[in-house]
């Protein structure tokens, strides 16, 4: 499933970043987010605004468009 399909507050593991734009992926890697990272969708801003994602206690904002290219797997 996609990161944007998570509900607010749900946790998941990132499984694929290869569809994400090159520069965006570089920045995600810089922030320590790569395949295998645990993320939690904290909130989505209205009108297709950016969403807030948490990883290891650190939050970051990312555009909905970019987040929709991130494939995740929900934690069972």
């Amino acid at each position, binding site marked *: 499933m996609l990161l944007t399909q998570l509900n607010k507050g749900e946790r998941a593991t990132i499984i694929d970043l*290869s569809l994400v*734009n090159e*520069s*965006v992926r*570089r*920045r*995600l*890697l*810089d*922030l*320590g987010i*790569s395949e295998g990272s645990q993320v939690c969708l*904290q*909130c*989505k*801003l*209205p*009108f*297709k*605004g*950016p969403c*807030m994602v948490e990883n*290891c*206690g*650190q*939050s*970051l*904002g*990312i*555009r909905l468009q*970019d987040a929709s290219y991130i494939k995740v797997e929900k934690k069972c």
Partner: protein
Amino acid sequence: MLNIALIGNPNTGKTSLFNNLTGTYQYVGNWSGVTVEKKVGIIKNKKGNLIDLPGVYSLSPLSKDEAVVSNFFVTETFDGMINIVDASQIERNLLLTLQLLEFEKPVIIGLNMTDVAKRRGITINEQLLSEKLGVPVVPVIARSGKGTATINDLLTDDLKVDASFTLKYGPIIEESINQIIHLLPANLSIPKRWTAIQLLEGNAEVRKYIRSLGDGAGIDSIIQATNEQIADETAASNTSKWIYSVRKAFIEELIQSSVVTEESENKSLTDKIDKIATHPFLGIPIFLATMFLMFKLTFDWLGIPLSDILDGFISGSLTTWLTNGLNTAGASDFIKAVVLDGIVAGVGGVLVFVPQIFILFLLISFLEDSGYMARAALVMDRTMEMVGLNGKAFIPMIIGFGCNVPGVMAARTIETPRERMLTILLTPLMSCSARLPVYALFVGAFFAKYQALVVFSLYVLGIVVALTLAKIFSSTILKGEFSMFIVELPPYRMPQGKALLRSTWDKGKGFIKKAGTFIFGGSVLIWLLSYSGPAGFDVPMDDSFLAMIGNVLAPILAPLGFGTWQAGASLITGFLAKEVVVSAMNIIYHVPNADSLQGLLSNEFSALSAFSFMVFVLLYVPCLATVATIRKEAGSVKWTWFSVVYALVIAYVLSLVIYQGGKLLGY
């Protein structure tokens, strides 16, 4: 003297550590070629200089800001590094640390925020970490300065070089590293292994540097071949990914052995505040309310009362003392006129606004330090995206409210060149604090009851014009598909008094310096032009050179509602710095203080033409210092001219619409 570089990820407390490691003395200069601030301070133990580098995640640059750091590594000489590491985010912080260790210079790691880490259930064994990495690891609390004494003690004249740290990247990469090392110039001033790794990783700045030393074709083909080999033979799709995964694996192993992590699920204060600050519907209203509160504080509640006290002092006691002093010294009438009518009126007229400007800078520093800026960027991103920018562009704009110069510079954190250029061009439309004296003068005279509201409307107008132009520019002359926005949202922190005062002073001192240079010089010049005319010295003001110059502009400005030579002349001089408009008016109308100037102005302007004049001052051209900064940051004469010309056109058109429209409506 040692030269030590301070480097670390953004939002790790680097500035606090810098302030605590160096005393009060520091100088601010520029990095060669760009106007990114280069802060250098003397380390407290007097053993050397500490160079503050912009916060970066990696030595491979994505933004202009980061390019400065890469460039520093390849071109400047330094003796060692202090690497500040955020303990609560140790994994990604160490990614940078590994690249620093590979540079084969002494490194001291300052481990910050261990308290935050502990609350999150992370405990770090510094000793073990230090052994594994082969460098000292000092726990510090950057905000209070705890631990800085230990760092001071480690910074001795003979810094130990421990080049024992080597991370092996596997047979394919190691082979390529060896090949590249052979092709590098023998007298290369930077470590060859580091250079080879950075080249393989795709560091554009290092590649540019190596190319500048000679033909890099051989190296390029090795990089190419390695990339293909990695893609074919490993799970990674290119070299940089492979290198990243090797580093990440190394860090994970390191953390397993030296970091204890417990699950802790307590909700932090940050989460609670974010529930409101980035609330889907309350987010934007809260942002606007914050801005409005800022202006209320700057004007109504704190700034104006303080300014009034200062004004009373300058036009009262100070003028009396100076008059008496000059009389006793037997100064000529000419000297007396220069000092009292030129300098006191001009410089004093601007200095009275120092309290308001400092309060504004203090509030901006507070927003920066508290962590709210990043949230503002997040909340505004959607709006900014619609006009072809991204949320990050909002931060330079807010900083631009203080002063456009650092605002334009702050645009360098924006990754995409197109969005960066747009931000540079539009930040000068943000109403900087130098425009405040002009508003304060006019709202005091014409809108006494609604001061904060009228000034706030000007700020909003600046933003609206900027966003509208962003839309127009991004769909015409600065077209581009790619836009990027990722922002780190650091935990909220209560800003510290000392750090706040320091950064307020850093920002505000330029204003006082300006009063002593530009405004001082400008005031004397304006006074001289008003004192002399074709008929000689001490002519009636209307026959002065200044009136002649102003009269050229007056007919052009007449449709805007202020077709007097006085307005024209003060606007020309306002290019030096916008507050000079007030100095010029003080001198021209020959009044002792702001109150009597306001009284006089009400004969020359109507409420409508005063508003039109303020709008014109808001938009007309960036000041001299801003234009120079745009020239450097944009790196293009064409765009610099563009920024001046479009602003002038917009200012004229809007003032015209407001004045003529207002007249039609019967104001």
